[in-house]
């Protein structure tokens, strides 16, 4: 066995997994606060990446201006989605709400095709091209720097949720909606904030992923991998999303490298199936007690 090769593959996988963790975080924030499973997260990522393309490519802004703008655009989109589509569904069955997000995904794809056409696109380069070596291990620069940017946002998020007022409100709402409400927390605002923050994480990840792999209206399919991540980690566990993100990213890449690209999805979905049978609420998720 070529351990150097294995090391490099693993590193590439983990770097990608870091981005999965970031998207997973966006997913979990929304789920924790609002109990909505957002099947459109891949399309929100895509939308932000197209915004970046518009700002940095079409309008020829500096990528470092375009990136925050695109991410901001993605978060605004999240907030609008919550207001327009999710809020009217309060109290409906979770199946219905999920279907709303599936419908939303289709709408976003249509809008993107309308605005940018169906052609495949490449984002303007904004990450350094110099190869990155960790000891002897080679790592593609895009994913290395992508990982760093993603990890930074992740850190900021974790600190924010730990210490800020908004973070506390979010956590309180997540743990007990009724109690949070009675404590004077504006639960509706928190719902909206959760969508904004969740979409923000997804948007940044979207731009970074599109920067490495390219962009097209089919980009949203990456959401499937994220779904695996959050189910394996546990829908309501931030830690779970991060660990599962790294693991799934690694597994996908290793399976792809050693077995072939057609094994990437089956490999991760096999893990998903095992988790569903053994620990349906995920590795780190909370098991809810049912009552009659």
């Amino acid at each position, binding site marked *: 066995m*070529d351990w150097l*090769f294995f090391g*490099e*593959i693993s590193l*590439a*996988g983990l*770097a*990608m997994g870091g981005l999965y963790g970031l998207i997973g975080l966006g997913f979990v924030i929304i789920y924790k606060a609002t109990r909505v499973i957002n099947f459109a997260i891949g399309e929100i990522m895509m939308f932000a990446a197209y915004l970046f*393309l*518009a*700002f940095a*490519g*079409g*309008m020829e802004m500096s990528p470092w201006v375009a990136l925050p703008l695109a991410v901001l655009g993605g978060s605004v989109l999240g907030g609008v989605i919550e207001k327009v589509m999710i809020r009217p569904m309060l109290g409906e069955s979770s199946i219905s709400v999920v279907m709303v997000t599936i419908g939303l995904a289709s709408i976003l794809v249509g809008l993107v*095709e309308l*605005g*940018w*056409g*169906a*052609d*495949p*696109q*490449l984002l303007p380069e904004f990450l350094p*091209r*110099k*190869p990155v070596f960790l000891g002897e291990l*080679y*790592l*593609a*620069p895009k*994913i290395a720097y992508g990982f760093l940017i993603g990890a930074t946002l992740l850190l900021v998020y974790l600190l924010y949720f730990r210490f800020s007022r908004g973070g506390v409100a979010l956590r309180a709402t997540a743990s007990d909606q009724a109690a949070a409400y009675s404590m004077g927390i504006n639960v509706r605002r928190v719902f909206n904030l959760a969508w904004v923050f969740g979409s923000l994480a997804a948007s940044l990840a979207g731009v970074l*992923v*599109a920067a*490495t*792999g*390219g*962009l*097209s*209206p*089919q*980009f949203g*399919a*990456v959401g499937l991998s994220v779904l695996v991540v959050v189910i394996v980690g546990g829908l309501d566990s931030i830690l779970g999303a991060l660990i599962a993100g790294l693991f799934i990213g690694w597994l996908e*890449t*290793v399976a*792809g*490298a050693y077995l*072939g*690209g*057609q094994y*990437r999805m089956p490999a991760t979905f096999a893990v998903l199936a095992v988790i569903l049978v053994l620990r349906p609420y995920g590795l780190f998720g909370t098991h809810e007690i049912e009552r009659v």
Partner: protein
Amino acid sequence: MFKRFLTRGLRLAGIGSVAAALMTAAPVLAQDKEPIVFGGSIPLSGVFAFAGVHIHAGLTDYTNWINSQGGINGHPVRYVMEDTGYEVDRSVAAFKKITGSNRVPVYYGDSTGFMKTIASELNSRGTTLMSGASFATALTDNQTYPYQFIPGPNYTQMFGIILEYIAMQGQEGDKPTVAFVYSDTEFGKDPIENGKAKAAEMGIKVVEEIVTKPGSVDVSAEVLKLRRARPDYVVFHGYILSPINEFMVQMRQMGLDTQFMGTFWSSDKLIIDRMGADADGYMGVMPYNYYDSAEGGPMLEALRSQAQKSDPDAGYRPTAYMQGWFNAMVWTEVVKRTLDAGKELTGDNLAASLASIQDWDTGGIIGVPVTVRDMSFPVGRIWRVNAKEASYEPVSDWIHLN
């Protein structure tokens, strides 16, 4: 971006206005003869739309041109199409609708899936000859698909042309090595088995074989595999753009001097437009001359002037446009031969006319006279990207497989 969006809209408006004009223009040209209908399931939307709009433009412009030349033996040509979204069931619906209300001797199919699906219906009708966007190897099987042909080499033949080119580049006794990178789709897997057999036959070693999803995927791990296999040539198949760019950029970052090549749909100018300087040196196999190539010929000139006339702002026309035009050219030739022989326009007669094509001069669309073999045109040429000129330049002679 808004500017580009706008120009794109205008360009498309141009295509459309021609299509509309055609409805009214055709009867004027009619010389009291029954029009000949070119039918088409065209993917104006969906994953293949980037090509579909240009295929549509190519077919439209050709129709206008041939009508300006007096049609086919005095029969005016009418092009009737419907958007399919690149979905098989909608393509079939379009076929039924168009063939239901017209007599359609020739038809454009938008995907291999559609071509295979419609085959049984086509065979039992025996009225229509079909070609289209697909270069699938399977369609050259005349037993199963007697009424379908390929407007160029099939994918296996494209691999053959590429491998012949590669073999020619080897120093004496020292054959280059090659790696195949293809997408996990029907399209992607089409020529791989045959390609490996052909390589083995020619003594070219396939040192690595990589399957990926098409489109936006992270390929860092696959690049690492190629880094170890160190092929002299990497042949891409089953992609439009991504992840070809990422393979090329990352492998060059590693300091590898691998030569990258691709088949028809991976050899559009889109690659240069999107990748810029990174595309330099990329090679593709192409059966038609590029719109902006230095080559000439009466038909190529006609194409250029017609394209210019229909949309003066469009400038360069992509390979999909050439492909659409060439399809219509072959249809015209086949219909003409059948009419000249005094035969009815049936599937069998049209197929026989197609099979009779030998050393046909395409007027510069293809640089050499072509001969139909097994319902395909097994000819092509290797082109290389000159990023500075933003164009493909020929690096080989025309290779005509036997």
